[in-house]
């Protein structure tokens, strides 16, 4: 800013945050749970970007994945089922200077929280939203979720799920003001990290669907992808995801995809035999709600009082002098 900027602030010591500075409790997720990989990736992002813990907020709903804020040594808000997004929007609206992340599960986001999800996309606030999609309600011990594959036997669908799974990526892509949509699997840490990083740097609502294994209830639903790397189609682009040599060797099925191409993005979101991984769509030009709505000036309580009293004065009866 003009006149006064960061140069004016005396910085005697460069605070440096290590990974440990973002780790709080030992996660109580099951051994082998994919949420661990997401947690590690996010902690790595915080360290790489040196996010001040006091300026970072993780908001979640209810579910296994929603224990996320407990394991981050930052501010956190473990909210109500399906209500992570409205809380996060409130935080961002009032404190635009904070880095806001949202972690929710597939049940949280695509079932009880659907309305909030749709409108959060439309509001396009500068938030990173990670949907941990394991295709099951894990915390409540195996009930079918909207993203459970058809035929998955669960406590609520002992005969197997009746319906085809909801496609959250396609849904997100079709909402007004969508600005960032990515799809990724948690077991390729490098790609996961790069996509979360891109989402963090995106100015607007960044939605990432993360395919996450549940070792207990849905250990096999991703077998096709885990065992046959060619079933994963890596969407690469100079403006999108770029692979390291090692990952490139392992995942040979690569396709160049320009994230500004919405039509192609929808095509990749609906592949039936393959699973697209990468940034499907990105548009930096969509306005953010907080930028549009943020008041141009801050009003102190005194100013508010003054204005109110001015209004009240119009109705007061003056004693005759």
């Amino acid at each position, binding site marked *: *800013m*003009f*006149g*006064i*900027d960061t*140069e*004016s*602030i*005396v910085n*005697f010591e460069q605070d440096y945050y*290590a*990974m440990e500075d973002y*780790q709080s409790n030992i*996660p109580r997720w099951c*051994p*082998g*749970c*994919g949420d*661990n*990989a997401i*947690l*590690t990736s996010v*902690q*790595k992002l915080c360290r790489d970007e040196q996010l001040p813990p*006091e300026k970072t907020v993780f908001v979640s709903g209810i579910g296994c994945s929603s224990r996320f804020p407990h394991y981050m040594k930052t501010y956190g808000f473990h909210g109500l089922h399906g209500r992570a997004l409205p809380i996060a929007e409130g935080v961002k609206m009032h404190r635009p200077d904070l880095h806001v992340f949202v972690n929710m599960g597939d049940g949280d986001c695509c079932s009880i929280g659907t309305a909030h999800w749709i409108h959060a996309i439309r509001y396009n606030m500068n938030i990173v939203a990670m949907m941990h999609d394991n295709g099951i309600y894990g915390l409540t011990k195996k009930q079918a979720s909207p993203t459970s594959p058809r035929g998955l036997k669960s406590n609520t669908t002992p005969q197997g799920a009746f319906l085809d799974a909801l496609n959250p990526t396609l849904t997100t892509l079709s909402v007004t003001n969508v600005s960032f949509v990515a799809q990724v699997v*948690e*077991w*390729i*840490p*490098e790609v996961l990290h790069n996509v979360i990083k891109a989402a963090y740097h995106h100015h607007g609502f960044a939605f990432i669907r993360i395919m996450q*294994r549940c*070792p207990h209830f849905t250990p096999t639903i991703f077998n096709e992808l*885990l065992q046959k790397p060619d079933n994963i189609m890596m969407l690469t682009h100079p403006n999108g995801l770029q692979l390291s040599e*090692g990952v490139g060797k392992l995942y040979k099925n690569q396709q160049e995809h320009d994230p500004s191409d919405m039509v192609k993005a929808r095509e990749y979101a609906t592949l039936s035999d393959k699973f697209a991984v990468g940034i499907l769509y990105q548009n930096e030009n969509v306005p953010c709600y907080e930028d549009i709505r943020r008041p141009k*000036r*801050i009003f*102190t*309580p005194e100013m508010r009082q003054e204005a109110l009293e001015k209004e009240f004065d119009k109705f007061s009866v003056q004693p005759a002098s």
Partner: protein
Amino acid sequence: MKTLDQNKPNGGDNGSAAAENDAFLNTLTAIGEEFEGKGGETATAAAEDSTLTAHKESPLLHLPEVPPALTATEASNHFANLLLFFLSGIRPKAYQKQDYRIDRLTPVLLHAYRDATAVRYHFPLFLSQGAEGLACQPLKSLVDKLAETHCAADDEGQRLKRILLAVESRIKSQLDQSNTGSLKQQWQTAADAVLSTLNLTAERRKDIAARLNTIAETLPDAGELYACHPRVPLLLLQNAQQSAWDTHATRLAKEMHELIFRLEGLLGSEAQPDDPGRTENHSEAALSDPALGELDADIFAEIVSESQPVSLLPEPRRERIRAAREVIAQMQKKYGLVEPGSGRTGAAENAPVRTCREALNRYYERRADLTAFFKAVRIARLEVDNRYREDKHDPYFAGFNEHYLNHREMTAFPPVILHLQSGSLNDADKALLIEILASDMPVKVLFQIDQICESAAAVDPSVNSHPGRQDSLTEPHTNSSTALALNAWTARLPQMALNLQNSYVFQGAIADPEALLEAYQVGLAFEGPALFAVYHPRHAGDDSLAQYINAAAALEARLLPGFRCQPDLGSGLAERFSIGRTPQNDRRWPENELHYQEDSTTETAMMAFTAADFLAQEESLSSQFLAVPRTDWPPQMLPVSEYLDLSEGKRNEKIPFILMAGEDGLLWRVVPTQDVIRLTYQVAANWQALQELGGINNSHVAAVLAAEKERLETEKAREISDLSEQHHAEMAQTVGQLTEEIVSRIAAGLLSEGSATAMPAAPPVPRPAPKKAPAASPAESPAPAPAEAEVEEEEALSFDEPYIDTPLCTSCNDCINTNKAMFAYNENKQAIIKDINAGTFRQLVEAAEKCPVRIIHPGKPKHPDEPGLEELIKRAEKFN
């Protein structure tokens, strides 16, 4: 270049083209336009417009009739008389008459601009604050735009256009009285006045009034008109400064507003409710009905009044925050750092000062304010971010002084504006001014030059004995005793500042207000001191055109060449220095076409406008010139610009002259004194120095170029001679060989009877021996080796050693939970084998089996005596 030679042969055809002079002075390009339109309207229209076309065309320039040729004696007499005047300034007896004074003459190139009512120029100037900042444009271009939009090409449209021009002319004369006024108001008054002078029917008057009103509505609402008067340079500067400061202050105010808001947030976080709030009644009112059923208001009030929250802020911190807030608020008030519309004050803080001492004092005061302000701001920022550490920051802020401020902070408050008049500069100011310009203080100096040259006597009475003057020849009642000198300060101060190399320097004249405003804007934004030297003539009276013409002529005549130097553009002169605003800056003097009549024939000549031409129109110097009629022109006369090109020795045989014209358009040759020529020469030399700085006709470059050209030429000449020698030698050799071959062929033909085809087989050209391929090309042979080595190496690894594909680890804790001593996380929280000996091969295999992403490779067992090894090796196989 034609020189209007009197010996030109008489006669020629009778051309009738009007002599016009429309291309003079780039700064005055638009001047040639005149207000009245051309003829060709209907009688009614002409009658309507009669008041609009009152202006008469200026008389044509013409040479007097060719006089009879001079005899040798006459010529030598005239030459002697003029030489006497040239050398001494004494008017010979023959030229004592009033006719030979130049008071009623104008330099020929300025002749066309004598009638102020007919000329459109940069003034009145319209200054407005637009979306893109402060901008200025001449009223004439505003009127032209209006005419373009509202006036059709038909007669009616053209009549309206003439009315608009009349309004413009009217505004001009209105402003000659008031100097400044708002555009809308001036326009309205002028339009009414013009309308009342028109000879119109009632209906037509109504119609034209309506159309004028429509046009008036499209005029910009805000904005001021300025006539060309001496306060304009300062007014423009103040406007530019205010505009820059407004933008800056709004941003700064917003930041401060937020900062104070946050500081108050810190102080307010522990605000205590007032005592009345703790009373029982208040509690009862505060609790709603259902709550009252379950809560006892008395007890509630008791609890509330007893529970005094402990103060969260330690006292020193609270004091610090308060103090910072206090200082910021104080400065906000002092410098008007409030958002627009909230009644900004503080303009008085920035009224220009008149002496250097005052400027310094104000600068020191402002610097102290800045130091206090930014100290408070920095403390506040630290406090707001909760980063203030007393052990470290206390000593830092205890020693806080102006050296801690960075450049941008130093310029956060409005710069000091110093307004100096060249005529009234005293010695103390002179010394301090250099000090200011050499420093890095943001002091912006407007140095208004009101007189370029003055008599040496006025500068210093002791300079009475000018070296070139012969006192004995001085005639008492002429004014030639005053020797001429460029006013040392006006002419040299900006150039001296240029050499200091750390201040923004601009030199220009009021005749180019757009350049002036631009220079102000850049100079005000410049971090250090800035000097704006602006020429605004003092002696031209109230006539704003005369002042304007004088200023423009000074620019043209190089007496005050326009230049600017902006040190932050780069370290080289090419980047920081420019003489771009001086007209025709690649020439020594600007040259313009002059049309004149001789024997009813229109002639065109190129005329240079020299410093002598400029000086000739200065009233105070009229005694330095002598007008000579055509009958007395000796053949030795030479135009000044050509005279200056002569070598010292040749000048003695010549007398320089300039051309001037009387009101009737009659051309006179005017002989200046030696002093004027010396001054002209000085001006030319000074201009050449500036040109060289500006990269034009640089003498060093020219010398290097000449030397380089000579070197290249010799080199090339040598090459050519070498080549031709070689060629000759080769020719001789080839001819010799051919002769030999022909002779041998003839001989062979003769020897082998009848077989004409038998030719001596040319010896096979020995093919150049193929370059011996190096036995082992260094580029190729070693390459395969590492590849092989790699393979070998890879084979050598042979998966016997256990390892983990760490980058693929998903941190699921499975292996860690198996054996914490054997497995661990690296700094990225991804698994590595920490100590292979800390566990058994069985654990290694189990971990590999558990790993959901199958990245643990157990390899071969280390200890052959582990039980069940065979089975384990089998299980491990699929992971290796």
